[in-house]
């Protein structure tokens, strides 16, 4: 997936596809591949295998969530009422838009539009940061209400819902017995584990995007070698899909119970 050779040779807009060895092929074609197509297929295949390990990883978290939700249902319902649907919906829209700009970035790379590619990558970068910013607003609220699992965890929103007027006026939750209320901590553990791992993937993605913007400005991806942009796109869309499932499971499905 390295694109280091592409830029080294992309500099002299070489119409001849020769390089140091004196034989003909694009500079970015590695010698252990038959041709460009085979190289791209191999990289795409490997990227999908990696994404499938990621699917299994997040799948474990989703499964844990479903099992505990089934066990401690009343606690999970009341705990999920603490999440703000407005921020969740806005973040979903931000992330989907960033997936769109990323897809457009791949198109720009394929059709060799350097300025378009840089613009798309910058937009994706900004939208990614926007997502994390909104997530920070949500985390801040959880910290202030002592809903982060640990020594300072507070049960008062669940044993005494009236003490939390903002949530109470919307949901009119009944007080939970202490043993059930304790299990809201399990909900928030899973909430932070799942959204935290998702956010970590976003942070890694944004870091790679920063690197790609730098390289795209130097013309690395618009001379025919799009593998890196394409496979990063796959990663970014995968992160989007994880959120597409996190949003209904954490925010939406317990609104009425």
């Amino acid at each position, binding site marked *: 997936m390295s694109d280091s050779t592409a830029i080294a040779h992309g500099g002299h807009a070489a119409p001849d596809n020769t390089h140091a060895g004196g034989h003909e092929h694009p500079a970015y074609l590695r010698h252990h591949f038959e041709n460009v*197509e085979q190289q791209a297929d191999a990289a795409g295949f490997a990227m*999908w295998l990696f994404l499938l390990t990621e699917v299994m990883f997040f799948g474990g978290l989703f499964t844990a969530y*479903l*099992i505990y939700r089934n066990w401690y249902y009343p606690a999970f319902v009341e705990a999920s009422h603490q999440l703000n649907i407005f921020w969740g919906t806005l973040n979903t829209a931000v992330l989907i838009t960033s997936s769109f700009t990323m*897809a457009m970035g791949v*198109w720009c790379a394929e059709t060799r539009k350097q300025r378009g590619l840089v613009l798309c990558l910058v937009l994706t970068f900004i939208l990614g940061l926007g997502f994390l910013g909104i997530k920070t607003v949500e985390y801040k609220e959880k910290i202030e209400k002592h809903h982060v699992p640990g020594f300072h965890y507070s049960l008062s929103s669940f044993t005494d819902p009236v003490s939390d007027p903002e949530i109470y006026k919307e949901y009119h939750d009944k007080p939970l017995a202490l043993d059930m209320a304790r299990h809201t901590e399990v909900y928030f553990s899973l909430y932070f584990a799942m959204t935290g791992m998702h956010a970590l993937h976003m942070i890694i993605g944004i870091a790679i995007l920063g690197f790609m913007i730098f390289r795209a400005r130097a013309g690395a991806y618009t001379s025919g070698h799009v593998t890196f942009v394409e496979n990063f796109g796959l990663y970014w869309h995968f992160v989007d899909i994880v959120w597409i499932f996190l949003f209904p499971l954490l925010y939406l499905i317990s609104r009425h119970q």
Partner: protein
Amino acid sequence: MTDQKEMEEAAHHVVSPVIYIIVGSTLLVLTGATVWASYQEWGNFNAVAALAIAVVKAMIVVLFFMHVKYSSKLTKLTVFCGLFTFLALVGMTLADYFTRAWGRW
């Protein structure tokens, strides 16, 4: 060079921006739909509707944004096998847990 470029583009299907715009707006509309559905009183069906919409959205992303619809058979098979294995593992785990204490709670 032109031949080379044409060969690359023949082997490598370029998805047009029109499709990306349609797919992007469909995803935003479905996001609105899933939020709307969560405000309805459908009982257990609320969760079913939310997950069904999520699955549709994920499929659209995989097929179009991730190009699987236009990819090689190898990629299609890889994605399908991976998802099948994933669903088998999650399905069997959940079936076990949800029936372990059947009637005892």
